[in-house]
């Protein structure tokens, strides 16, 4: 499987889809978090400041990185979902899937490698976003980051990992419907359903809503009641999606 991981990793880092999505996660989101913190801290009653202040939980670095986590929870599923749909679905859209068959690496390992490299890419984007966020926090005048920064970074990584698990069923969708646009359309549908479920009040038990609520998108009260069990539901969703994709790559006629 190692050669497949190397090849899929190279294809991923070279792809415009991953580069643009990676720039959003690693650059745009920290800049947006810093901008919103600046608006909230600058005083006044501008519309921006009034909207942002309720989203801030805590003070200092914890508040800033918490904001980063909130924004990341919104952007991550979208970015990772688009990239994973493309990574898998492009082989059908571009009709290159036949080149990945009749090889020493069985087909199921190929799609698992695609999911694995996308997961590593997502976590790398999260790490880069932290590296970008730190100097921006210093520029905001938050002072030298303390030990609580480690906890915030761990929470950010957890959010990204959960969102990656939640994106994994799109590998199956892009395989089943033979193209990346099907996966992206399904992703849009998932985001709409998540909004509706959250409005209906069942968000914490809906795997696609729980990480964003935990990040604070529903306010501090909603974040506090999200349990580890509710968050961990993302893991079986991801494993089931990957298993279904791997099974289809191995057993179905893909050409």
């Amino acid at each position: 499987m190692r050669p497949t991981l190397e090849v899929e990793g190279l294809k991923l880092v070279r792809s415009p889809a991953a580069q643009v999505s990676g720039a959003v996660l690693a650059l745009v989101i920290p800049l947006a978090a810093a901008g919103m913190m600046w608006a909230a801290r600058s005083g006044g009653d501008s519309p921006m400041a009034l909207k942002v202040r309720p989203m801030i939980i805590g003070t200092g670095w914890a508040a800033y990185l918490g904001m980063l986590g909130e924004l990341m929870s919104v952007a991550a599923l979208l970015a990772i979902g688009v990239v994973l749909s493309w990574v898998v679905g492009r082989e059908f859209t571009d009709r290159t899937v036949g080149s990945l068959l009749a090889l020493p690496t069985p087909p199921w390992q190929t799609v698992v490698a695609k999911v694995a490299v996308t997961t590593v890419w997502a976590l790398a984007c999260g790490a880069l976003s932290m590296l970008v966020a730190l100097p921006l926090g210093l520029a905001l005048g938050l002072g030298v980051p303390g030990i609580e920064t480690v906890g915030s970074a761990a929470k950010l990584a957890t959010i990204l990992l959960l969102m990656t698990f939640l994106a994994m069923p799109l590998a199956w969708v892009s395989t089943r419907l033979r193209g990346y646009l099907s996966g992206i359309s399904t992703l849009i549908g998932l985001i709409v359903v998540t909004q509706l479920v959250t409005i209906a009040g069942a968000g914490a038990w809906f795997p696609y809503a729980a990480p964003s609520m935990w990040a604070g998108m529903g306010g501090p009260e909603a974040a506090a009641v999200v349990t580890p069990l509710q968050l961990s539901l993302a893991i079986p969703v991801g494993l089931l999606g990957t298993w279904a994709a791997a099974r289809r790559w191995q057993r179905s006629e893909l050409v």
Partner: protein
Amino acid sequence: MTAPLTAPVLSMTGVRRAFGPEQALDGVDLTLEPGEIHALVGLNGAGKTTLMRIALGMLRADAGSVRLDVGAGPVNPLGAPPATWRRVGHLIETPFAYPELTVRETVRCAALLHGLARPAAGPAADRVLAELALDHWADRRTQTLSLGNRQRVGLACAVVHEPRLMVLDEPSNALDPAGVVRVRRWLADAVARGAAALVSSHHLDEMARLADRITVLHRGRVVGTLDPQSADLERQFFAMVYAEEAA
């Protein structure tokens, strides 16, 4: 060095395959001997690509048997072990060419996926790029290549690991006359080294120059064979096709 092959590299007996009401293959028997270029010719939709995909385990046959023997023991391509696939190369319709990779990277990736170790993959890619006259474009991204050069990259990817069995669906598609000659010579050299090739085309002149044996496929059936050295292959080909239509 691996031992020379003696048994047929590919044996297909009574292979049938339908797609809905369309009978794509209807009882096809075919063998490919070691050191042989066996050409499949037929009109569009004759079943050539389906036959090749079944030979490679990409599609299942509804009936009949398929055996690959590339020196790792005779196996059914469905579920064949990695040792078998390390000795097989294929180019079916779309070349292994990703627009974001350079030509050299693409061929090196193909070498890795076909089982070459990392230290061997780069030199193997450079060798086949030189042999197929692609070294001029080695550092260009494949998206900048012409259709014909992309096809040659696909061929380089299919053969970079020096397979014993090559399954090539219209390998000279989109190539200019110089490219056609170069690929033909390269294939002849590879077969002289002990490989075997199943090649499809609907260009009879090209197959006459390339193949040791020509099998004519029409509407999913083998309707005859052509001697590549014989005269007026086109007339013989259409005679077989019309006879099958009239039957």
